[in-house]
């Protein structure tokens, strides 16, 4: 009986992996941009503590934070196309779902960062004759950003990891490439190790930076 020889990994496969990595980075960056934009406005509105509006915004934030991204993706990709005329491509569904998911987490971080600046700062700025926007821009943001950056970078690392889930709706990111190569070459152990290492190479420097930023924030409070 002839022995079956498993196909070897070729240089073309390496190219495919790199392409997938590029798609992962693209989706993650776009999602983070969308998430930051929406999240900033929602977080800002929440920090104003307007009674009913605050509660309404929680209706946006909490369900997104408390349901699995896989279900959100399937809902956006398969569900919405079934009942409306709009049928998003895998790329659109991936970017927008991940972006809106990011926005809910970003809103919480923005709100917490703004609130971390003590009330006295607002009062002092108002008594010096600054209006809301000037106070916000010149007094609050420079202080709030110290709290914001470490948590936000941490969120970015997390969203990079969960961006792998977009492969489940058929979007060809690095995880999907790994899946396709597994089917072709039948060397899952090797391929999933490579994919894991590639993700690690992307994610580890960013999470190291988050840790560094956090230590800087802590030491700043002690000296200043």
């Amino acid at each position: 009986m002839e022995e079956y020889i498993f196909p070897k990994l070729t240089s073309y496969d390496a190219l495919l992996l790199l392409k997938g990595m590029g798609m992962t980075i693209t989706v993650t960056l776009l999602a983070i941009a969308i998430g930051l934009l929406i999240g900033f406005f929602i977080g800002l509105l929440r920090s104003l503590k307007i009674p009913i509006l605050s509660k309404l915004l929680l209706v946006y934030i909490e369900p997104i934070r408390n349901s699995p991204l896989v279900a959100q993706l399937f809902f956006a990709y398969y569900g919405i196309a079934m009942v409306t005329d709009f049928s998003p491509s895998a790329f659109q569904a991936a970017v927008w779902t991940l972006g809106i998911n990011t926005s809910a987490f970003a809103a919480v971080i923005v709100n917490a960062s703004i609130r971390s600046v003590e009330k006295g700062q607002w009062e002092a700025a108002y008594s010096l004759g600054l209006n809301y926007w000037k106070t916000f821009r010149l007094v609050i943001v420079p202080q709030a950003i110290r709290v914001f950056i470490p948590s936000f970078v941490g969120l970015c690392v997390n969203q990079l990891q969960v961006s792998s889930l977009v492969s489940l709706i058929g979007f060809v990111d690095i995880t999907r490439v790994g899946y396709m190569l597994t089917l072709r070459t039948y060397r899952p152990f090797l391929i999933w190790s490579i994919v894991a290492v590639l993700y690690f190479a992307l994610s580890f420097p960013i999470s190291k930076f988050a840790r560094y930023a956090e230590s800087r924030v802590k030491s700043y409070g002690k000296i200043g």
Partner: protein
Amino acid sequence: MTLHFRVIFSNLDFLLEGLKMTFFISVFSLIIGFFIGLVVAFMRISKNKVFSSMAIAYVEFFRNTPFLVQLFFFYFGLPELGINTEPVTTAIIALGINNAAYNSEIIRAGIISINKGLIEGAESLGFTKFQIVRLIIIPNALRVTFKPLGSNFINLILTTSVAVSITANELMSNAMTLSSNTFRPFEIYLTILVLYCLLTFSLSGFIHFVDRKFISKGIS
């Protein structure tokens, strides 16, 4: 646009079966995740360089790679080494190992937060080792770790949905099966989203309640 939520009610049993499996997977991986997390946390703070760097490598690796890739590695990769895998067991083990990395950081912070003076004071009052652990270390560490561990557990429940990729017959997998059988993804996934929300909202309410009533009692 007409919605047919009948699909949900006529297949409620099937979805509830999935919910049961989600519970099953969550609870077992919670237990595995807690104990591995405990071991890793103690390795991390040990003075032995080999142990502590092993713990750091463990935590960094599992926190910087996606859970989906880890799951595929366990599910598709291990059979190549001659270890047979089955979806539910694989999901439980992968989730447990993944969650342990997050738990260990929380537990470590809990251990570090205990004031050395408290232990010395207890020793000078003649407490036995067992009494110190039971009366000083555990209650104090629990106060710091209970809520973060709780939110980790909620995260774990949400992450069980990733097991849809290896069809572990949990809630998300059953929803997907149902959706491809009935062709009503909108109604089904909407229901699933609501179900997960109800599950996590009630659980986080319960965690807050336990924390207020029993754990942070008398602490302002």
